[in-house]
């Protein structure tokens, strides 16, 4: 490892990565456990000639984001679970309007106001579309602070490429953890956004809207969107396989759960148990193809671990499609599993061996 990497909290590293990716507009509203991010942006944006604005509510923030994105600039908003719920109306509008932006959800315990501890119970909301209409959005789920930096930069590129919002999905633990990070050089492209509202002087006017009263036209517009979503599904699924080569049991987990599960997998391996870890990096598109392959190669059991009552496990089952047994272990309400707990589950499923 390179010594003297910068120590940063996840929330702050996310902010710095966004600025390096060219983000110059941030609209937010404070909510624990992501408040270090707007605080960081409030300090840094003026230094780079950007704009930080604390809105009067999450609804205001997401609609400010819509406005900024319509002008073609790189812009972002962030929140935690209850605040993210409020932002979904705006996300639906932005997807309908084909506007690129990055939205962050540093998840906490729910439902309702819940608490401020780490959670992963917004998977359905983010992946299945909590807003209205036929929409999809790429959702990136980093497991450590360096990956959070790398995926933040990727998020802006993917948003611009597809003209679609991209979700960055973390939890309170990732946001609060401080680790060494390095910031890769970022190539910011000044691609001409030939759709952006930049003032119609000496050019034909452009219109950005999600409103289309004619159903035939709206169906055609939906076909365009669906073609984009299909392209994302085709190209953007990302995952990591760890010690899966000869595994009999594979743990499936993302984000913080995956990081903890990895320690459990190492401990199981030390006991001679053939266990691997399958870590989705994109939650949508869900990276099912590797799971399907592992099931076909002879993995007999999958253990899905989440800080939820079992949401991603539905997608795991769809990918495995009955070829292997899929079990679930989850902690709820802001509780974080320990490596020992997950190891206990692994041992139990493998017949109490070792």
């Amino acid at each position, binding site marked *: *490892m390179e010594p003297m990497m910068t120590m940063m909290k996840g929330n702050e590293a996310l902010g710095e990565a966004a600025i390096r990716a060219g983000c110059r507009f941030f609209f937010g509203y404070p909510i624990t456990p992501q408040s270090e991010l707007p605080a960081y942006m409030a300090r840094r944006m003026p230094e780079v000639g950007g704009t930080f604005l604390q809105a009067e509510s999450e609804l205001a923030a997401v609609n400010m984001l819509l406005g900024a994105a319509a002008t073609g600039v790189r812009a972002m908003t962030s929140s935690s679970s209850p605040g993210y719920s409020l932002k979904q109306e705006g996300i639906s509008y932005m997807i309908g309007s084909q506007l690129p932006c990055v939205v962050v959800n540093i998840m906490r315990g729910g439902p309702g106001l819940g608490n401020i501890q780490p959670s992963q119970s917004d998977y359905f909301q983010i992946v299945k579309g909590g807003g209205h209409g036929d929409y999809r959005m790429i959702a990136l789920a980093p497991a450590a602070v360096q990956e959070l930096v790398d995926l933040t930069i990727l998020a802006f590129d993917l948003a611009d490429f597809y003209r679609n919002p991209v979700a960055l999905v973390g939890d309170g633990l990732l946001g609060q*953890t401080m680790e060494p990070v390095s910031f890769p050089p970022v190539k910011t492209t000044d691609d001409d956004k030939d759709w952006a509202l930049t003032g119609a002087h000496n050019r034909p006017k452009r219109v950005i809207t999600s409103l289309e009263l004619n159903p035939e036209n709206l169906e055609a517009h939906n076909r365009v969107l669906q073609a984009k979503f299909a392209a994302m599904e085709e190209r953007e699924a990302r995952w990591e396989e760890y010690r899966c080569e000869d595994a009999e049991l594979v743990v499936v987990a993302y984000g913080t759960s995956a990081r903890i599960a990895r320690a459990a997998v190492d401990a199981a391996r030390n006991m001679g148990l053939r266990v691997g870890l399958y870590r989705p990096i994109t939650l949508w598109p869900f990276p099912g193809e590797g799971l399907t392959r592992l099931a076909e190669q002879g993995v007999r059991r999958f253990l899905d671990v989440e800080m939820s009552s079992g949401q991603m496990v539905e997608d795991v089952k769809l990918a495995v499609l009955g070829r292997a047994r899929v079990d679930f272990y989850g902690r709820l309400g802001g509780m974080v599993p320990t490596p020992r707990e997950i190891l206990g589950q692994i041992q139990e499923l493998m017949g109490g061996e070792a």
Partner: protein
Amino acid sequence: MYTHEVLIAGFGGQGVLTAGQLLAYAGNLEGQHVSWVPAYGPEQRGGTANCSVVISDQPVACPLVSEPTACIVLNQPSLEKFEPMVQPGGTLVVNTSLCTTRPKRTDITVVPAPATDLAVELGAIRFANMVALGALLAVVPMVKTESILEVLPKVMGEDKAQYVPINREALKIGMEEARRVLMV
């Protein structure tokens, strides 16, 4: 291969989070793999605070420490909560100035140190965290003292650089106390 899983706990305001950050920054300075994470909640002044620090020669698997190999407890509630969690063979530094009971475990190395009293003798109560940290480092030298002093201005602010000498003294007092009580 080694992994130090450190948990530091006490009252809010005792410098629990700062002591943990100093450890993590020092480990990073030395090129070790590190992480730091605070227990966060609806906290209040005088409430309990703790943080997890991992220092390893491997990439950090789990930043949240549930079974510490090394633990500092600066007050009685922290002693009661975390003594049972220390891994067998681990080290527990106890601030005897503020802990009314003594650890019962016999399968861990207990380092009793009157950190608060020693800090007051040194000149200010706020150095208790550094005295305790010194006591821990005497038993588990996971980072060098000099590394901690080097990162101190970065963690606490450049205007605190003038306090490096007294922090050096606090670490030294803690180390000497640990060596004295353990006779090492």
